[in-house]
């Protein structure tokens, strides 16, 4: 795995045809940061996460990992990136174990140990051999989170990680993200749930209309601050 201490977006733009999804965004995340990426629907949060994950190429500007571009690292870089997207990246026809086993092998992990630990962490050890299509949204979300973290990534990208989770699971995810950041991971969380993010994130980045309108250390009163920047 490639270890890097920062990820930097430098004057990054991304256009889809004539639509500007992201425009001149510069943002740096360092090891141990938990960056909250906030903004209204269509603000460009998912595109920024896609660019950080190497899935979306910027139209202009650069994305660097420890000072080097994704191209310099090649395929190996992706072993250091974990992404939980709004879509869960799971095969509903396969069981929880088969899903995790497939991705573990794809990442070159010792499968039985990694899969067992992930199933325990998701609280799904007793449903390991059930098809994912029969799971509730919360169970699928927990499984998808473990799939994203299976390979202990250095850069953890979470797009709406709390969707469908109950209180207990939400607390576990928060603790998990804090532990990851404590171990030196760079965590980026995009969410609309400001109350859940309050107290979790260490830095706040607010995007509106594809532009970064705030990038500052987190302080309390996240909702009030967000409203002052974006409106209701």
């Amino acid at each position: 795995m490639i270890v890097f201490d920062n990820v930097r977006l430098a004057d990054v733009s991304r256009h889809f045809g004539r639509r500007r999804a992201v425009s001149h965004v510069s943002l740096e995340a360092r090891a141990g940061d938990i960056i909250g990426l906030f903004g209204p629907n269509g603000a460009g949060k998912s595109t920024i996460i896609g660019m950080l994950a190497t899935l979306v190429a910027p139209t202009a500007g650069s994305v660097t990992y420890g000072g080097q571009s994704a191209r310099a690292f090649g395929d190996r870089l992706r072993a250091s990136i974990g992404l939980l997207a709004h879509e869960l990246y799971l095969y509903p026809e396969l069981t929880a174990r088969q899903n995790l086993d497939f991705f573990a092998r794809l990442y070159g992990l010792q499968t039985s140990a990694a899969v067992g630990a992930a199933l325990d962490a998701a609280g799904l050890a007793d449903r390991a051999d059930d098809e994912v299509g029969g799971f509730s949204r919360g169970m699928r979300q927990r499984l998808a989170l473990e799939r994203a973290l299976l390979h202990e990534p250095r850069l953890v990208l979470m797009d709406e990680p709390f969707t469908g989770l109950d209180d207990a699971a939400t607390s576990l995810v928060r603790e998990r993200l804090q532990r990851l950041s404590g171990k030196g991971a760079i965590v980026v969380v995009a969410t609309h749930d400001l109350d859940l993010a309050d107290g979790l994130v260490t830095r706040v980045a607010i995007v509106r209309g594809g532009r970064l309108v705030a990038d500052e250390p987190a302080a309390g009163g996240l909702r009030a601050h967000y409203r002052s920047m974006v409106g209701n």
Partner: protein
Amino acid sequence: MRPGFVEVALLVLKKDLAIEFKSREIVYTTLFFAVACVMIFSFAFVMEEGVPVQGAAAGILWIAVAFSGTLALGRTFERERYGETLRALLLAPASRPAIYAGKLLGMILLMAATEVILTPMVAFFFHAPFFARPLLLAALLGLGTIGFASVGTLFAAMLVRTRTRDVLLPILLYPVTIPVIIAGVRGTAALLQSPPEEPVATLWIGLLTAFDVVFVTLALWTFEPLMTE
């Protein structure tokens, strides 16, 4: 340790087979469509006395293969679109051409399974001596399938996030794979002559091999840039 090219391709293939084994959705729909296609052609091209129109068998076999293959391509990638699992594959630290190769192998197996049913069926309905030169016929079908599936897999993956993918796939696929289909039809027709024209069939096999080399190489080369949004 990160898995190598062959390991990744086999992992993707194994995963696709495991899903298909459970759902049997694509294999049943493809087979049903292919059989229906041959039945409809048999109503049109077999006369009342049970005598088929001369020289129709080769074309009907390849049309059924191409149409059912297109259906299978669409369904295979529709499965990857649900839950955006194709993005999860692209996010893995595996060689992206290897992911393409795994998907391609799955398509080839599926099309080969369809051909195993289709070929005797067309031979029966159209009184076509397909099995007079079984090795040459297998070579034509195998190489034609690789050519068709290699382009189809690339296009289906490219179009997976396009709203009009069901319409666009055949529009893009058929013009590009026309050389493969022509070579397949002409080569198979040569085998159906009495006596079979082996040198002509061998010539088309050579051309199909050349098409396959070009198509597979181009697809492996372009898969990664085409899949980056």
